[in-house]
């Protein structure tokens, strides 16, 4: 009984000490949060004069204010606003590196509910406390929505190192696995370029969900860059579901018709100039159709040089009629619903006039078109014509 009482009293004392220290810590955190109130106020008001004064105060505080500052990162998404917070964090961290508590900071990185940007700030601090920490963290970050790309990038670098050390077979195997798992278009292309000679490799177009088979026609005169605003017979027929891809059109006394075009396997864009006459101040059209087995919500990712307008099943879904655009992956995005059966697309791309005496169109974007279709996770869809 005596021993029982002795043990119980110790347990109670320890519990009360723990509770007391927990309370003290919570009180301390609240005290620091209060200290940050004027800083927070200045951030809300976006007043640079107040901000710089408050920044000077906050950046001189000790490391106990770090977690309240990291919590503040959750409230702001603009890099400009975050910069006030992160530069203060940086000042405190570099002054108090030896006093930072790794165990208290790491959970903030692991919490996937926190903002990606905030988690990256935490990772940066942890890397300063324990150099090399980042590499270890990324090894298990493949499924982390914020750090998936970082994971992939570090794995690609490792595979390249293996290859450079002479173990080409193992590097290729690793890269092929990464190729199947990558979601980011840039990373998919980068890996593909390293292993494209491999037999049985899923094509780049299929991995990206790139639409590679089209019928194209042009050039139609844009008449002093008015192409995007003008309505051409091709568009009228398409919208009236009367588009006949065997039809020809008279343009300045010449007959032009639809030509089949398949994008080459290593290329990601349709270049009109490869099969059609290239001319300044012109309009080109591209038509295609894809089959879907079910009704499906997808994302269209399109781009044109220099302008692009894209219709899906008769509805204008991407309208970017401004000149000087360069074609690049995923420039314009929109969510659409594919219907069960055939889905039609019509793209209209216009090229500008050129610059007169200063130089032709040197460096100007050529007539190009890119369209890819991905699912809700960003994975390319394989949709047949």
């Amino acid at each position, binding site marked *: 009984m005596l021993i029982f009482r002795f043990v119980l009293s110790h347990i109670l004392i320890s519990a009360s000490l723990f509770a007391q220290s927990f309370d003290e810590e919570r009180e301390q955190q609240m005290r620091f949060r209060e200290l940050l109130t004027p800083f927070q106020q200045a951030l809300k008001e976006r007043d*640079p*004069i107040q*901000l*710089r004064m408050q*920044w*000077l105060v906050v*950046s001189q505080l000790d490391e106990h204010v770090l977690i309240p500052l990291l919590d503040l990162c959750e409230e702001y998404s*603009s*890099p*400009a*606003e*975050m*910069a*006030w917070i*992160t*530069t203060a964090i*940086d000042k405190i961290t570099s002054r108090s590196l030896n006093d930072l508590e790794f165990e208290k900071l790491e959970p903030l990185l692991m919490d996937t509910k926190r903002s990606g*940007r905030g988690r*990256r*700030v935490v990772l*940066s601090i942890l890397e300063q406390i324990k150099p090399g920490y980042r590499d270890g963290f990324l090894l298990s970050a493949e499924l982390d929505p914020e750090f998936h*790309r*970082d994971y992939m*990038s570090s794995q690609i670098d490792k595979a390249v190192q293996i290859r450079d050390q002479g173990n080409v077979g193992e590097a290729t195997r690793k890269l092929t696995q990464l190729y199947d798992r990558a979601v980011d*278009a*840039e990373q998919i292309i980068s890996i593909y370029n390293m292993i494209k000679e491999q037999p049985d490799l899923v094509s780049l177009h299929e991995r990206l969900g790139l639409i590679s088979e089209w019928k194209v026609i042009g050039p139609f005169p844009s008449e002093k860059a008015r192409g995007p605003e003008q309505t051409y017979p091709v568009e009228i027929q398409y919208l009236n579901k009367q588009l006949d891809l065997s039809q020809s059109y008279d343009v300045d006394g010449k007959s032009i018709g639809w030509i089949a075009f398949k994008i080459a396997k290593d290329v990601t864009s349709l270049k009109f100039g490869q099969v059609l006459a290239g001319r300044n101040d012109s309009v080109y059209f591209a038509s295609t159709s894809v089959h879907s087995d079910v009704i499906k919500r997808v994302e269209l990712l399109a781009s044109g040089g*220099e302008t692009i307008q894209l219709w899906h099943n008769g509805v204008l879904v991407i309208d*970017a009629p*401004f*000149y*000087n*655009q*360069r*074609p*690049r*992956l*995923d*420039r314009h995005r929109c969510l659409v619903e594919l219907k069960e059966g055939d889905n039609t697309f019509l793209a209209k791309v216009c090229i500008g006039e050129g*610059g*007169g*005496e*200063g*130089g*032709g*169109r*040197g*460096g*100007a*974007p050529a007539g190009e078109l890119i369209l890819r279709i991905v699912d809700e996770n960003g994975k390319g869809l394989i949709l047949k014509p």
Partner: protein
Amino acid sequence: MMLNQTKLNCKTMAIARGNLRLLMLFSSLSCILFLMPTGNAADWLSWRGSNYDGIGEALNLPASWNESEGILWQRPLPSTGYSSPIVIGDQVVLTTSDGLDYTELYVVSLNAFSGELNWKTKFFGSKLPFLSQFAKELGTAVPSCVSDGQNIVAMFSTGEVCCLDLSGNPLWFRSLGVDYAPFTNDYGAASSPVIAAGKVFVSVDQDGGSYVLALSLEDGKTIWKRDRPEIGDNWATPFVYRCPSTQKLCLINSGSYMIECLDAQSGETLWTQSGAARLCAPTPFIYQDLLISTSGPGGQTLAVRLGDQSPENRLVWKSPKGTGFLPSGIQVDGNYLHSGDRGILTVLSLKTGSEVAQKRIGGSYRASPVMADGKIYFLSLEGTATVLESKTLEILGVSSMGEKVGASPAVAHDSLFIRGEKHLFRIGVKR
């Protein structure tokens, strides 16, 4: 009598015209000086120097150097970037970027005399969209800093702009990619900000949604924004001057087939001059009452008379000789020297635009030349420094930096500050 009177009138008119030209020249020079930041004469406050002409004050600069002589110090840089260094007092300041998407942004200050790190200010920038032409090895620290001697303004290709004091403490931040639209310059934005008359001018030329901004130097707020939908991607830093005849503060932007002059107070167009190439990276400069602007590829050099001119009288001469894509040119003794991208130095008369000389110096170029101590320094992308005597163009020396050089050098403290791919070098004579 009538004829004599007429002759006298003509002579008087000629004298008057000459005096007017002199007056305009004086006004131009004093207007540029008026606009100049209030730094020390030894400073190099923008990527083209404190006078935006690539000409520095220095003595006893070496014509060549190697590992044992001429390199006063070299310091590894913390991460990547191609911005040019600037010098404010005893600080050399430049920017770098790091991280998977080069969104970790740094403004770095080193001691000009020892190369030791003074301070480093780090913050996070916006992720750029996928840019197919963007060369990853350049990173996003490509626009160069600018200073008025008291404040440092840095801009990054991500769209972030910041103002720091001389200790690296923040004064304001802007995220232009968030405030307006994400930056979409396909090669990466490279135009540097400019400070004049209490404002920071930022030119955002890109493929879709180009604009020019005037920000308050004091708090970074937008004073005016001028949309320029007709403009495509360019990389020229704007040029600011005070018009001698109207006394208006003017801002020059070049590219997309034209030179455009804006009222720096309001952003309204004052005049345009056609004849530039579609793509423009070099920054113009003023020679007497002429604005000299080069653009390429396939472009030309234009000499445009400043002041209140009718469109017919504005263009004084144009020349397709020797134009290149990236480097800006330099003026020496009434001539315009331009290396182009491929190391063929072309010399044009600034009065007439006629070709005076041509000389092959070899190499490919991104950096613009600088002149000081009677020498012109060309830094090639391969890391070769070729030094020419400024009057005779005799090659005085050739040195290897041991690494790529894409940034233009700075001249200060009787030294050159050269930023290589991995190091910052101070070149000079040991005292």
